[in-house]
């Protein structure tokens, strides 16, 4: 009787989970496996020749491609700089929101907006702000006589990259802030009281208590953000199209173009796999630091 009941439950569990599992398996897992296989073939969307396995040829080819290497460099630069500044702004925001003051609710809602809005439309919003002839920034700076010539925010190197980074930092600092805030709220108030009695000033409190205890939340936030920044696609697509002269082209945008502009699915797949491996390595590094921290 008991046996029968358990086996029924087991069956029920599988029946409940199976439909969702199939979706995830066929929409996320198998396509990725297929792309990995594609990266070892000479599959092309246009040419009708039979597809053959060619080993690592695509990898050797792409690793010598200048445009690929510069996209890779752009991606590292973009991820490193944006995540660094997001962390600084995020800690600042979290420290502010953690206090109680009159405008707290307003600030907390307002910092959420950029993060909740679609990246592609954020890019459109900022493209309008950055517009050379009629954009807000140039209009303001020009009419205040701060600049005498209009700035080409998205059309000059290296300014375009900096402009793009600003949008990313504006959008995602609040995510950092929220993760760090949950970490802040677990720090017991008694620690600060004890420190104050011992005569510690606020800066000492921050350096000796807050920061060390925040390390786990900071690592989690860094992990998620850097993996995300490394995949950046919509922002360069909708803000600069990767220009000027490929200076804001990220790995994802380069890969997308290999696939859907040049229809070179073999090299595109190779870019996907390289990106995948790099993200995976990121994850492993963070997990390792995390484990060391815990011990």
């Amino acid at each position: 009787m008991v046996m029968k009941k358990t086996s029924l439950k087991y069956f029920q569990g599988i029946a409940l989970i199976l439909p969702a599992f199939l979706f995830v398996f066929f929409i996320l897992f198998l396509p990725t496996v297929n792309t990995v296989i594609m990266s070892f073939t000479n599959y092309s969307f246009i040419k009708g020749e039979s597809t053959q396995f060619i080993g690592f040829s695509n990898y050797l080819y792409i690793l010598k491609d200048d445009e690929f290497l510069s996209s890779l460099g752009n991606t590292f630069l973009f991820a490193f700089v944006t995540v660094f500044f997001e962390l600084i702004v995020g800690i600042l925001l979290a420290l502010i929101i953690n206090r109680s003051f009159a405008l707290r609710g307003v600030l907390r809602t307002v910092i959420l907006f950029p993060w909740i809005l679609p990246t592609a439309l954020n890019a459109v919003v900022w493209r309008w702000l950055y517009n050379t002839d009629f954009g807000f920034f140039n209009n303001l700076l020009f009419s205040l006589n701060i600049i005498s010539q209009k700035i080409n925010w998205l059309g000059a190197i290296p300014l375009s990259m900096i402009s793009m980074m600003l949008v990313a930092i504006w959008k995602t600092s609040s995510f950092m802030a929220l993760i760090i805030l949950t970490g802040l709220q677990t720090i017991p108030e008694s620690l600060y009281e004890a420190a104050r009695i011992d005569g510690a000033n606020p800066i000492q409190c921050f350096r000796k208590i807050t920061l060390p205890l925040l390390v786990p939340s900071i690592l989690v936030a860094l992990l998620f953000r850097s993996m995300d920044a490394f995949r950046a696609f919509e922002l360069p697509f909708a803000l600069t199209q990767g220009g000027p002269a490929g200076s804001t082209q990220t790995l994802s945008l380069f890969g997308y173009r290999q696939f859907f502009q040049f229809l070179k699915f073999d090299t595109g797949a190779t870019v996907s796999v390289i990106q995948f491996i790099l993200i995976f390595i990121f994850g492993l590094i963070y997990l390792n630091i995390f484990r060391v921290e815990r011990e």
Partner: protein
Amino acid sequence: MKPTVNRFNIQAGFYLLVIFLVVLFFFPIVWIFLTSIKTTGDIYAWPPVYISNNPTLQNYKVVLLESNLGRFILNSIFVSSLSTLSVVFFGAFASYGIARVNFKGSNIVLVFFLSMSMFPQLAIVPSLFLWFRRLGLINNYLGLVIAYTGLFLPIAVWIMSTYFRTIPRDIEESAKIDGCTGIRILWHIIVPLSIPGLVTAGLIVFIFTWNEFFIVLVLISKNLLRTATVGIALYPGEYAFPWELITTATFLAILPLLFLTFIFQKQMISGLTAGAIK
């Protein structure tokens, strides 16, 4: 006296910082709205017109009645609603299974789901495109909904199974004693109790599908079928760039999100940070 003055200064400085941050984060959205109610002349005027003297709803009329832009927003409403229903439906069953039925693999399944959601889209989309093309699912909302169901099930299952685990098992046990079984327990007892969890998951999925860009870009090539993100971002032709219409459409497309954020702030924060915090 002196300490009071000092404290007053610190307080004033703090509030100035807060106001600066509020403006910094909110300004781009305000600016889009201010542009959308300007006349075309005011938008391109010199000296610049920051706040219109004669605000107009003309742009809204054109966007909604005379351009494709209104259509993009309708498409978004349709696709996001259907996808949300689909994800919450399949996700609720799976989450209940993971949370309740004692079988060894349930945690493995959860970890599998979560690790899948880390896969970069650049690896997923091309194969999906090739397969969906063969199945006739390109330029087809059924294809889009299927893709979104797979893409956003992991986060929904994560949110919902965490929630289901907070519901005490005793409730089901007593229902069983009263003669209630299987699906009926799920439908009549668990679902009503888990409304908050389902709402959080539904909200997050709705927002994610509303914001999604890459998959629409690849699976939908007919302009009229595009959703708001891709439709608006690719709106202008090569030469003309009607900013008065683009800002208006952008504002209309983000308005639902602003409302949702305002009303469901708590659920949103808990749902969006769910993957990162647990």
